C-alpha cells in the first residue's frame, strides 16, 4: 500500500476513534445523527466516490475499501450508510447528467438516499411497485435507510426511477442489525411525471458491490477482534488472564492471521486490474469470516459480550445482517461455480 493510502487509513481510523466510538450507543439506539453526517461530509467521506466538484473525495477503489473497512471497524452502520450512498445511490444518479447536482446534496449531508435491491436477494418478492404508465404505485417491504428523501426503486418491469416525493415509510421491522439505519416497508404513490428514470443495470450495480461489502465485512472482523484481544489482556479467570488460555489465544491468533491475509488480498485486488471473480471470492469468504470472528469475540467477552454497553454484540448482529444484504448466496455461488468449471455448474 502506498503512502497516500496509508495516510488515509490512519486518518479514517482516528476519525472513527474520535467521532464515532464515543457515540456508538446513540447510533445504535437513535440512528446516525445529522451532526456526524456533517462531519463525514466535511472529510469528503459522505460522497467518497463522487467527484470533487460535487462535494466528494473521488476515492479510487483502494481508498474506498480502506474507508469502509476503517469505519465498519467502529460502526458497521456508518460504513453501510456510506456504502449505500456511494455504491448504489450516487453511482446511479451519475448515470443521468441532468440530475448530477443531486449528488451534491447527498455528499453535503443535506439529503439521504436509498436504493432498493432487496428483491434480488431472495427467492420471494418483497412487494413491488407497479407502473401503469401514469403512476408508480405499491409497497416495498424491506427498505433499508427508509427515512431517506431520495429513493431509487425498480418498477414491475425492472426499470429504475428516482423519486423525491410520493413515499411514506411504514412501521419499522424488528432490526437484526445495522440499527443505525431505519429498516421498514415503504409505500409509494407517485405521478410518473415526478419520477426520473435512470439507466440502471442492476446486475452491473450488484457486481460492483462485492469489494465494498468485503471491506465492511473485514472492518467488522477487525473491530470485533481488536476488542476481544484487548479484553483477553485485561480479564482474568482461574487466576490467569484470558489470553493465557490456549483455546482462546489460539482461536484469536488464528483469526488474526486470517484477517491479515484477507486484508492483504483486499488491498491487492483493489489496486490491481479489475477482476470481478476475485472480488466475489473475497466477499463470500469475508462475510463468513466476519460472522465467525464476531461470534468468537462475543464468546470471549462472556456475559458482558451479550450487553449492548460493551459494544461487541452489534458486530455479531451486523455481520449476520450484512451477509443477508450483501448478495444472493445461491445465485452468486452458481456464478462462481460456473466460472471455476468454465461451464454451467452448481445448478441442481
Amino acid at each position: 500500500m502506498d503512502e497516500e493510502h496509508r495516510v488515509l487509513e490512519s486518518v479514517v481510523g482516528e476519525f472513527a476513534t474520535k467521532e464515532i466510538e464515543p457515540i456508538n450507543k446513540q447510533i445504535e439506539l437513535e440512528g446516525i445523527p445529522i451532526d456526524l453526517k456533517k462531519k463525514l461530509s466535511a472529510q469528503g467521506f459522505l460522497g467518497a466516490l463522487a467527484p470533487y466538484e460535487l462535494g466528494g473525495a473521488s476515492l479510487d477503489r483502494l481508498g474506498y475499501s480502506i474507508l469502509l473497512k476503517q469505519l465498519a471497524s467502529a460502526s458497521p452502520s456508518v460504513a453501510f450508510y456510506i456504502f449505500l450512498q456511494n455504491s448504489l445511490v450516487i453511482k446511479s444518479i451519475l448515470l443521468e447528467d441532468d440530475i448530477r447536482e443531486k449528488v451534491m446534496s447527498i455528499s453535503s449531508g443535506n439529503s439521504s438516499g436509498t436504493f432498493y435491491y432487496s428483491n434480488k436477494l431472495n427467492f420471494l418478492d418483497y412487494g413491488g411497485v407497479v407502473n401503469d404508465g401514469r403512476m408508480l404505485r405499491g409497497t416495498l417491504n424491506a427498505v433499508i435507510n427508509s427515512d431517506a428523501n431520495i429513493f431509487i426503486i425498480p418498477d414491475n418491469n425492472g426499470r429504475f426511477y428516482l423519486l423525491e416525493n410520493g413515499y411514506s415509510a411504514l412501521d419499522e421491522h424488528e432490526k437484526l442489525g445495522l440499527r443505525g439505519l431505519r429498516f421498514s416497508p415503504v409505500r409509494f404513490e407517485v405521478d410518473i411525471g415526478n419520477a426520473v428514470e435512470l439507466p440502471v443495470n442492476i446486475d452491473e450495480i450488484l457486481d460492483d458491490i462485492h469489494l465494498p461489502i468485503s471491506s465492511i465485512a473485514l472492518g467488522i472482523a477487525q473491530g470485533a477482534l481488536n476488542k476481544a484481544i484487548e479484553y483477553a489482556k485485561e480479564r482474568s479467570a482461574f487466576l490467569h488472564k484470558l489470553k493465557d488460555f490456549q483455546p482462546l489465544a489460539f482461536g484469536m491468533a488464528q483469526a488474526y492471521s486470517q484477517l491479515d491475509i484477507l486484508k492483504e488480498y483486499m488491498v491487492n485486488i483493489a489496486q490491481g486490474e479489475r477482476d470481478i471473480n476475485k472480488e466475489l471470492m473475497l466477499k463470500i469468504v469475508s462475510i463468513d469470516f466476519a460472522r465467525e470472528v464476531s461470534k468468537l469475540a462475543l464468546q470471549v467477552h462472556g456475559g458482558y459480550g451479550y450487553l449492548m454497553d460493551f459494544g461487541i454484540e452489534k458486530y455479531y448482529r451486523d455481520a449476520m445482517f450484512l451477509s443477508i444484504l450483501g448478495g444472493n448466496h445461491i445465485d452468486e455461488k452458481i456464478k462462481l461455480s460456473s466460472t471455476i468449471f468454465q461451464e454451467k455448474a452448481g445448478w441442481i
Partner: protein
Amino acid sequence: MDFTLPEEIEEKRKKVREFALREFTEERKRYYDENEKYPFDIRKMAYEQGIVNFSNPWDLLVTIEELCRVDPGLGISSFVYAFGSEILMLFGSDEQKKKYLEPVQRGEKIMGFAVTEPVAGSDVAGIASKMERQPDGSYVLNGSKMFITNGSIADYVLVLARTGPPPSEEKRHHNMSMAIVEMKWPGVSANKLRGKMGVRATDTAELVFENVRIPPENIIGEIGKGFYYVMTFFNITRIYVAAMSIGIAQGALDMIVEKAKKDRRFSSQESIQFTIAEMATRVDAARLLTYRAASLLFQFNPDPVFTSMAKYFAAETATYAAETALKVTGLDGAVTSLERLFRDSKIMEIWEGSSEIEKLVIYRMFMKKMGVE
C-alpha cells in the same frame, strides 16, 4: 433401549405447543422484546393453565423445549420464576422449604439464584462476596452479583458467598456457603440490566449487598459446602438449558421448513435440501444427547460427562441452527421471529457454564472414567 417418551408426556408436549402458539402472539413477542419487560401476565397464564409442572421432570423438560421453540424470551420467563428451587429441594431445611419453596411452587413468589459476580463468571471459585459470622450466630453479607436472572423482580435469592478464606490456590472452592436472602431486607439493592442482545423478556440484574444481616436459619445446608451445592445444581440446570437450546434449534428448523413448504424455488435447490438435512440431524443428535443425560439425572444417577456434552452440543446447535436458518432464508428470516431466535440463541453458549467450561468438565470427568486422574 426405548427411544419413546410416555404417552402422557407427549400429550403434555402437544398441550404446551398449543399454549405457546396461542399465547405467544407476534405482538406479545415483539412488545416484551422491544421493551425489555418481564411478562408477568404470561407467567400467570402458564401457571394457571397447568403448563409448568415442577413435579415431573420429563414434563418440565418437554415444556421448556416447546415454550422456547416458539419464543425463548417469553418461554423462559414462563418457568424461570422458580430458579434455584432445586437447591432448596435438595439441601434446604423443612422450615426453609415451607417458608420459601412452597410459595414459589404455588406461583405466588419469584426466586433467583445469585452466584456470578462482576469479576467471576465461569470461575465460580473466584467469587469475592463474603458472609461473616456474628457473635449472635447471624451472618453479615457484603458483595455484589452480576447477570442474576430474576434479580430485579425476585422476592428472594439464593446467594453463594465466602464464609472463610480459601485454604490454598488449589482449594479456592472451599469455605463457600449458601444463604436465602430476602430482597426487601435492608442493604439489598438491584439494578436491572438493560440492553441485552436477546432473551430480553427475561429479567436480569446486578445485585449489591451492603451489610445485609442474615439469620442463621437462612443458611442452606452446611456451612462451607456452597460450591458443591452449586455444582450439583448445575448438573440439573444444564439439562434444562440444553432443553431450551433444542427448543430454539427446533424453532429455527420449523421456520426453514415453513419457507420450503411455501416456496418451491427455495426448496428445489439441493444446497437448501442438504442444509435442512444437516440441521434436522443436528437437532435430533442434540435431543438424544440431552434425553440420555436427563434420563440418568431423573433416575438420581447424573453423569456430569453426559450432562456437559448435552449442554455444550445443544447450545452450539441452537446458534448453528438460528444462524443457518437466517442465512438461507435471508430477508424473509430477518423480518420475522427468526431474527429474535438468532439473538436469543447466543446466550445458550454462555450461561450456566460456557461452552469452554463444559469442555473442561467433559475432559476432566471423561479422563477420570478412562482411569486418568
